[in-house]
């Protein structure tokens, strides 16, 4: 019984009770039958689950997004894609295993899939640097995306990173430039690009592979300009205020959809993606296919135009209309 989150406690208690009852049938109440009592507890369990998972706070969802058993990029590649052949290296400095990429099939379509990859255990996490990429990871991703563009393969980008790695080597090899170049170059790729935030969407490190025609997000994933802990440390001078920061930053999938910052929220099984990775992968696959097929029908010029306009209109500001001098709130117009 490991890896349970604090808000799951009532569920665990009921599950334990049920298990106990099944193990020792003689322990059940005398006035109702065994089957009835099991059914009663099962019903209560279902209700409790629904109650809890439909009313999660932003902070609760972040805990699910960071769950150690949550499916990672390679899990989705295994379940939602087929025939994956991994390609390695940035051809410049190193192979960054915090970013994976390669050819794969999504349904009937040959695609290039890339994504940030966390480790399942300590050993793998050291290899994957906990999913935080160095400059080489972003440069490898761009190399593969340019390759895909050259040979007409659509790009699927799976995002799950706490952020780009804040390290000495990363700075020495210019991680800021690696991300910035990706932002610029992804804007000019003529193939369809679909990004999906499957866990953590950590700031520039996520956006560095996130410039796309469509941006999807799993129900319990988050996408934020700064980690809630980082925001709390700066604004509240207290990392423990992370739950408050998570709320204020509006970083859950539903919040982002309401703000128009993502295109679709992909539902997860009740209890989170880790409770049923296969089903979650199937749902994600269907969503990716739907968007991919739509964008495949567009001309390269249309894909570029739509991608530009999509990002061009993000922002809210006030400006005075020259004619009236009256302040108006505006979202930058679609150009």
């Amino acid at each position, binding site marked *: 019984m490991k890896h349970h989150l604090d808000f799951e406690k009532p569920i665990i208690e009921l599950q334990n009770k049920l298990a106990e009852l099944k193990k020792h049938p003689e322990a059940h109440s005398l006035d109702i039958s065994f089957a009835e009592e099991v059914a009663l507890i099962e019903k209560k369990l279902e209700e409790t689950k629904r109650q809890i998972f439909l009313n999660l706070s932003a902070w609760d969802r972040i805990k699910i997004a960071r769950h150690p058993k949550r499916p990672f990029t390679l899990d989705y590649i295994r379940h939602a894609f087929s025939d994956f052949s991994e390609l390695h290296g940035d051809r410049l400095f190193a192979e960054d295993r915090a970013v994976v990429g390669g050819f794969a099939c999504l349904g009937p379509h040959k695609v290039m899939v890339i994504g940030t990859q966390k480790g399942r255990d300590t050993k793998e996490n050291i290899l994957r640097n906990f999913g935080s990429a160095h400059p080489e990871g972003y440069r490898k991703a761009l190399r593969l995306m340019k390759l895909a563009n050259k040979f007409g393969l659509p790009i699927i980008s799976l995002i799950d990173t706490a952020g*780009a*790695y*804040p*390290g*000495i080597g*990363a*700075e*020495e*090899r*210019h*991680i*800021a*430039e690696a*991300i*910035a*170049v990706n*932002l*610029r*170059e992804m*804007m*000019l790729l003529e193939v369809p690009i679909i990004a999906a935030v499957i866990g953590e969407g950590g*700031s*520039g490190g996520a*956006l*560095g592979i*996130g*410039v796309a025609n469509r941006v999807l997000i799993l129900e319990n994933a988050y*996408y*934020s*300009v*700064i980690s809630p802990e*980082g*925001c709390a*440390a*700066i*604004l*509240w001078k207290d990392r423990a205020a992370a739950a408050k*920061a998570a*709320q*204020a*930053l*509006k*970083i859950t999938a539903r919040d*982002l959809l309401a*703000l128009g*910052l993502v295109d679709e929220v992909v539902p997860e099984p009740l209890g989170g993606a880790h409770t049923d990775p296969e089903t979650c992968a199937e749902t994600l696959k269907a969503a990716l296919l739907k968007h991919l097929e739509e964008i495949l029908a567009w001309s390269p010029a249309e894909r570029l135009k739509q*991608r*530009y306009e999509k*990002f*061009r209109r*993000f*922002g*809210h*500001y*006030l*400006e*005075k209309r020259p004619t009236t001098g009256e*302040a108006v*709130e505006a979202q*930058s117009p679609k150009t």
Partner: protein
Amino acid sequence: MSTTSFTKKTLGLETTEPALTPPPAAPPVSSFNKKPKLAAKPKKREIPEGLWTKCPKCGTMVFDKELDENLKVCLQCEHHFPISARERIHSLVETCTFEEMDADMTSVDVLQFTGVASYTSKLQDYQRATGLKDAVITGICRMGPHRVALGVMDFSFLGGSMGSVVGEKLTRLIERATEKTLPLIIISTSGGARMYEGMFSLMQMAKTCAALAYHAQARLPYISVLTHPTTAGVMASYASVGDLIIAEPGAMIGFAGPRVIKDTTQAELPPGFQTAEFLLDHGLIDAIISRNQMKAQLIKYLDYLTGGQKAAAGL
């Protein structure tokens, strides 16, 4: 250009509000902000406040008027003090040629950010204290013989953080430059993306880089100038994709803040880490140019970068 005189600003705000990463703990900035206190030590009470400034690098007491005349560069040790966007524009453009764009654009509290203090009140405080509407001033100007699209950031407004206004004003500037086939210069100083606008701030990184992609595709020059400090979201977007990237001496430049790196890696940071000189040594920037040489050098670069096009366009 509305302000032509160099004025010494004593901001009422002691702490700059950082953005994506905690503020760089480099001494020059904090010392600058605490300048009025230093000048008003009990011992020197007879000296009127705001006449002298102690250089945080060499300790020399510099006469403010001389410091202003020298573009806020210490006459003894060449330490570069922070300079406001208006002063910088004045130091770079030909007199009366700066046509400001989107001067009235202001930020809105789109998330209704409920922090320790409301975003709206923060904005009002900083607008009052700095006389700026937001952290960037953009416009079209002339520098020497060149018509240039110029964007200049100001660190004194919420740590130069990039929210929707910074992103939108710069994107409009870049789009205007592309449309009018103008070279572009952006002078950056920023703690990163502005937290108060959440993901809208992050998206400004993609938005500005998108506009730059098309400016670059039109083979128009873009010079990015990095000044103290330029970090995080701004560094990981438009500031890092110039055809030329130059920096002022001693400027702190990087992606993650040094404290974050130290906490994450548990390693000692190399000497001079994340300074302009460190970046130059690692091959990450084209040149380090002193503020006093900046205008002449930028014009020289533009001479080269626009030489072919000018001939072709017959300008």
